[in-house]
């Protein structure tokens, strides 16, 4: 059982920043995210796109903002349960919660903050009849552990950055990498496209375009796929089939937690602390709704900050708290580090 003060669901910018604000109050955080890496939409959808409305940054790439947030929170040593989704929540008699993921990982927390953004990112699955049978039997929608493909034959399908990037990466891991796309053109960062071109010339990536995977064969595990190109079908032997057709967000199991939902978002009390209708469960960032709500990262940061204050009061009833400024008090990490402003020197000048 993972023990924490605040269990944050969603490792997007709002969830990550909540770790920092909680840390200032000496509250420990653990984050669950459905994706294999932190960053949420910023990392998954648009890591190379600039954002222009983060205060203090005239321009920052979404991926860089995630890197910076991870750097900012590292001294507070957040725990992560990645590539798992929060499935069930149980409130115990003492007001604490147990949240269990789809893989059975249990988390015990004094408060829960849902920072789930648009919801859980689920892979867009190709419309193949028997594909669900082969899930985790050779069909993988994410590359969670590249070692799974060590010395195996793999077929990746897709035309975007993730298909290109994983083809490049896995060309050094798998015994054979084949990239299949419906068109000849790829939509990705120029350097990725060029790299795939180069690896194709070196014979390290087998590129098949325009073509589509139309069937999967195999007894208990993927053994081959059927490729179709202009009406001509071809059976292609492989150990793994990795369709990377992007992700689509779903509110998922959280929708069944008894929370008040409006317009696909969780209603919160914005006048106070972004708490939901269930005492001890908060919703912050794009996942919540209240009158005047704006789905902006900067609003999520604010909501995370107020949520942490509320959790502090909840965990420490009656304890007096005075807002501190990091410029004055510095930042004491859970890892023993301390950051503080340089002390001014008092010295006479001759």
């Amino acid at each position: 059982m993972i023990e924490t003060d605040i269990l944050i669901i969603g490792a997007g910018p709002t969830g990550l920043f909540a770790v920092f604000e909680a840390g200032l109050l000496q509250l420990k955080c653990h984050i669950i995210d459905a994706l294999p890496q932190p960053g949420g939409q910023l990392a998954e959808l648009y890591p190379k796109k600039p954002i222009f409305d983060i205060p203090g940054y005239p321009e920052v790439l979404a991926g860089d903002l995630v890197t910076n947030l991870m750097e900012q929170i590292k001294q507070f040593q957040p725990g992560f349960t990645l590539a798992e989704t929060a499935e069930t929540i149980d409130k115990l008699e003492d007001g604490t919660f147990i949240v269990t993921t789809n893989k059975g990982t249990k988390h015990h927390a004094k408060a829960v903050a849902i920072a789930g953004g648009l919801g859980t990112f689920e892979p867009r699955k190709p419309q193949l009849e028997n594909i669900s049978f082969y899930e985790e039997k050779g069909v993988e929608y994410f590359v969670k552990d590249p070692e799974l493909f060590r010395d195996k034959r793999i077929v990746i399908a897709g035309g975007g950055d993730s298909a290109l990037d994983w083809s490049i990466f896995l060309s050094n891991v798998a015994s054979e990498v084949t990239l299949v796309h419906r068109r000849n053109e790829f939509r990705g960062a120029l350097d990725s496209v060029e790299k795939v071109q180069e690896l194709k010339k070196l014979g390290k990536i087998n590129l098949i375009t325009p073509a589509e995977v139309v069937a999967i064969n195999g007894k208990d595990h993927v053994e081959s796929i059927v490729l179709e190109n202009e009406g001509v079908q071809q059976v292609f032997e492989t150990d793994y089939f990795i369709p990377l057709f992007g992700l689509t967000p779903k509110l998922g199991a959280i929708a069944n937690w008894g929370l008040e939902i409006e317009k696909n978002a969780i209603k919160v009390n914005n006048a106070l602390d972004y708490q939901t209708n269930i005492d001890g469960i908060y919703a912050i960032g794009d996942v919540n709704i209240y009158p005047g709500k704006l789905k902006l990262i900067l609003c999520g940061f604010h909501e995370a900050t107020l949520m942490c204050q509320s959790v502090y009061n909840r965990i420490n009833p009656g304890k007096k708290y005075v807002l501190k400024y990091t410029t004055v008090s510095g930042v004491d990490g859970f890892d023993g580090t301390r950051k503080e402003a340089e002390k001014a020197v008092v010295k006479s000048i001759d």
Partner: protein
Amino acid sequence: MPQDVTVYITDRNGERHEVQAPTDMNMNIMELIRAYELAEEGTVGVCGGMAMCASCQCYVLNDVISLERNPDEEAMLWEAYHVKENSRLGCQIPITEAIDGLELEIAPEQ
């Protein structure tokens, strides 16, 4: 003062709406659909308008605008479902005076 334009949008329940769209707000059709709440929140414009999700796919029903897609839009529609010849992504159609009278139907959810 820039004039508003009129756009006709059939929602996912088959109901046709006549909506007024401002041409001076740097808006697009996806944002217009959201502003008038013509589709359930969270089901249109999921990626924020970057041509990365196809949740705002529309069918163009008259010839007010060209069916020519930009490269990002074309690439996304190649990977989307329910795509027809007259599919466009709402987020890639800016609201200008040139779209006055445009008639669209919102495609089914992806």
